[in-house]
């Protein structure tokens, strides 16, 4: 599945002031983090779709498709970007009550890391 890079409503493009030309440009391959939404039996399908439409500005069709993917597959990558961007999205999703996590976009299982969290 291809997803366009999602920017939240609060990360609008900055207006260029005067002579400024941007010196740092991030291209798509440089931003390897995913925002994952997990299924739970509580959140209403309509509510999840509403959050995707209003927070990310996704179309009704795209929001419903992502919502159904969460519901049927248990999880869906709903946005990607830099680590800071997806973390900001994650905390916004937590504000809405959606269960969101961030992960590196490399695919596959978690790298052998120390300090595994307890699973409840």
């Amino acid at each position, binding site marked *: 599945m291809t997803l366009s890079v999602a920017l939240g409503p609060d990360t609008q493009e900055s207006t260029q002031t005067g002579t400024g030309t941007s010196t740092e440009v991030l291209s798509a391959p440089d931003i390897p983090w995913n925002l994952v939404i997990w299924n*739970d*039996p*509580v*959140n*209403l399908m*309509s*509510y999840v*779709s*509403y959050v995707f*439409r*209003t927070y990310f500005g996704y179309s009704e069709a795209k929001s419903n498709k992502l919502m159904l993917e969460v519901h049927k597959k248990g999880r869906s990558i709903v946005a990607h970007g830099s680590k800071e961007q997806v*973390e900001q999205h*994650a*905390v916004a999703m*937590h*504000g*809405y*009550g959606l*269960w*969101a*996590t*961030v*992960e590196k976009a490399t695919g596959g299982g*978690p790298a052998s*890391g*120390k*300090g*595994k*969290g*307890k699973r*409840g």
Partner: protein
Amino acid sequence: MAKAFKYGIKGITGYLEPAERDLLRSLFDDVVSMLEPEERADQDPLAALVGLDAEAREPEDRALRRLLPSVSKTDAAASLEFRRYTERSLRESKIGALKAASLGLDKDELVLTPADARHWSTALNDVRLVLAERLDIRDDEDAGHVHLMQDWSQAEDVESYLALVYNFTTWLQESLVQAMLQSLDTRR
């Protein structure tokens, strides 16, 4: 009986009986008291002011953990660090929405601005997340089972009462979200 929220010329409107408003107020207040951070005497006031909480850790209570989830499934250290920077303001924004919704319960007829509607939808969602943990709703089958409980005359114990309350808040939130979706479609 409450009336479902609907979207019309006055915006999003609803109607609740006094007993229903009392119930919702106590639910909102309960979740507020769960979310209120403990004030510690040794806390750095400047850190608290900017939203830092060096002592924050993953909540032991399941319901609170669902309200304030970890940001990584696999990296506990990164989750903890993120929590120390963000959890306090997340708690505060949730408390703000719950209190705003609670304050709007001062009359039977509800007329919600778009901001009110957002506060209400997240407040109801947080209440439902907490009730669902108390009811042990772990999967869609559990949710379906709880959903069967619709008759208030059957409320014999705490669990059946909680199930009825859960179903009431689910119904209310669903009608609110449908009205909010309708308002989006109308504005476009």
